[in-house]
């Protein structure tokens, strides 16, 4: 085990992608445990890890987000957000947060938010006279919403790995998601007063407002289909995601005609390759998971932690500290796949509800997307805005503070996450 742990760290540090690091280490552990005969278990575990219907929602959500980007639905959503909050002081800054919130009800990934909305938002704010550093930092901070609000890829991964209900965890993430939106808008209100941000001077006529709303209504109906379908029990998460793709295809090809048939193969390819990258981690981690099980690793971690952290809050704080550190270096999805099978049982044995733990764990890892040294959202924003990573992360400081406060709220008040699924009867 010690050799495997050292090999794991070493292989990570020489730049080998996590999926193959986990694959190599688990292969060694298998060989060590039972020789060549045990290596036959490797492809079996890989197959079993991927042959799961619930995780299929993930490729379909990638596909829906691709279709939405190509069919230019984004601009309708930005316009709609502008019609609602654009007249406030610091209007475009509020639009940035609200548009991210709308977009995240369809995409489920923080990175997709920056890649698609980021350039539009930053450019628009810059032309209106906002400080570019603030505009970029806000874009990065608001992209996190995408990873929290359902349908969220990372929460879906957690549901798959920790074997909890997708409906319950989606429901649990709604209040935290809204809280984050309110917190970010509060920062904008404060900054807008202090720096006297501009606002949109001309209001829309009721007629214009109606047209903008109707245009945005078609893409915005998608999350209603998804969430409504899942929560009412009509669809499984996977079926809902597939129906959402079909809906985007009909809207794009037939109703709005902004999507061309020739765009579709590219969308299918990008969605397939993105899926493959994350699922390779899932596949090799399932081989590793076999060891976690037979070596009773969660049990031994739990028993050694219980001595240090006796109550659930202390235990959560301790785990979150580790996760924040891991999240700074590793991709959030990969880190979740590798660590949730170890940490979720530890947390549950310490008295933390698995749904509550999923929300806290996902947020702690997702924050790492926006921090140096390895922060994909930060890097994406840097390439969109042409600002330096250091400059953006300095402008992010107030937002890092907000993220930590938000994380603390989630840890200390489990009901923020648990009240809604409990009311709906998904958990007791």
């Amino acid at each position, binding site marked *: 085990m010690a050799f495997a742990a050292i090999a794991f760290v070493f292989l990570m540090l*020489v730049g*080998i992608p996590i999926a*193959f690091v986990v694959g190599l280490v688990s*292969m060694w552990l298998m060989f060590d445990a039972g020789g060549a005969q045990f290596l036959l278990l490797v*492809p079996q575990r890989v*197959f079993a890890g991927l*042959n799961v219907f619930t995780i*299929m929602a993930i490729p379909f959500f990638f596909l829906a987000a691709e279709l939405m980007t190509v069919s230019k639905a984004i601009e309708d959503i930005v316009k709609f957000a502008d019609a609602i909050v654009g007249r406030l002081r610091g209007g475009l800054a509020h639009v940035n947060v609200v548009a991210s919130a709308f977009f995240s009800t369809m995409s489920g990934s923080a990175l997709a938010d920056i890649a698609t909305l980021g350039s539009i938002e930053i450019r628009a704010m810059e032309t209106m006279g906002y400080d570019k550093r603030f505009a970029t930092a806000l874009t990065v901070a608001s992209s996190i919403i995408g990873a929290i609000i359902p349908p969220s890829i990372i929460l879906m991964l957690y549901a798959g790995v920790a074997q909890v209900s997708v409906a319950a965890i989606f429901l649990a993430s709604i209040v935290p998601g809204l809280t984050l939106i309110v917190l970010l808008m509060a920062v904008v209100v404060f900054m807008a007063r202090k720096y006297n941000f501009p606002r949109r001077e001309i209001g829309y006529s009721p007629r214009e407002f109606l047209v903008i709303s109707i245009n945005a209504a078609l893409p915005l109906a998608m999350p209603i289909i998804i969430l409504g379908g899942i929560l009412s029990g009509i669809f499984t998460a996977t079926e809902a995601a597939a129906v959402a793709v079909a809906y985007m295809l009909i809207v794009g090809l037939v109703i709005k005609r902004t999507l061309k048939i020739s765009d579709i193969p590219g969308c299918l390819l990008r969605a397939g390759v993105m899926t493959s990258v994350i699922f390779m981690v899932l596949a090799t981690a399932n081989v590793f998971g076999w060891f976690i099980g037979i070596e009773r690793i969660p049990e031994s971690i739990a028993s050694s932690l219980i001595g240090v952290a006796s109550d659930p809050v202390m235990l959560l704080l301790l785990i979150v500290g580790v996760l924040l550190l891991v999240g700074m270096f590793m991709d959030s999805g990969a880190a979740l796949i590798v660590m949730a099978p170890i940490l979720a049982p530890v947390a549950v044995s310490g008295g933390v509800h698995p749904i509550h733990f999923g929300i806290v764990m996902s947020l702690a890892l997702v924050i790492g997307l926006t921090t140096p040294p390895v922060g994909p959202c930060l890097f994406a924003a840097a390439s969109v805005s042409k600002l330096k990573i250091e400059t953006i992360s300095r402008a992010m400081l107030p937002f890092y503070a907000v993220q930590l406060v938000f994380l603390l709220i989630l840890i200390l008040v489990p009901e923020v996450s648990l009240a809604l699924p409990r009311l709906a009867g998904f958990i007791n």
Partner: protein
Amino acid sequence: MSAFMKFADLLLVVARLLTILIVAGMLFSVLVGVFFRFVMPISMAWPPEAARFLMVAVTMIGASVAIRQLDHVGITLLVDVLPARLRGAVYIFGNIMIAVFLVVFCWFSWRLTWEMGPRQISSSLGVNMVFAYASMPVGSAMMLIQIVAVSIEGWQRTLQKQSPFSPPSPV
């Protein structure tokens, strides 16, 4: 060398085409399942199973595309500060390690496919499990080819004083 790169490029096109078809097939299967449950009151067992097998296939086949496009990223924080030649050597070492994994995986998934596959019948489709398992040896063989291809391309970037870990920067 150039004949090999042509072969790898051809295989990349095939893998991309397969990825597109498999994702489309997955979507089709799930939608057929939904359609028959709601529109026609016939419950069908095969669509979810077909879609699951296709999902295994898209992971394995798509991974070779991802390898060639450098979509699988690792932590390059440390290797980025190394001198160019050493960084290139570390890159090649990493790829050799990945290749070791892929060779072992390919061999044992091949054995799984042909030793266990013919004796197992899938529960809903009623097909031989060879079809379900086969994407693993095929996919890992394709990944192996692309690992060799990216190693060659990465070493060429090293000689041009670029990082082998990231895609070529436009000059």
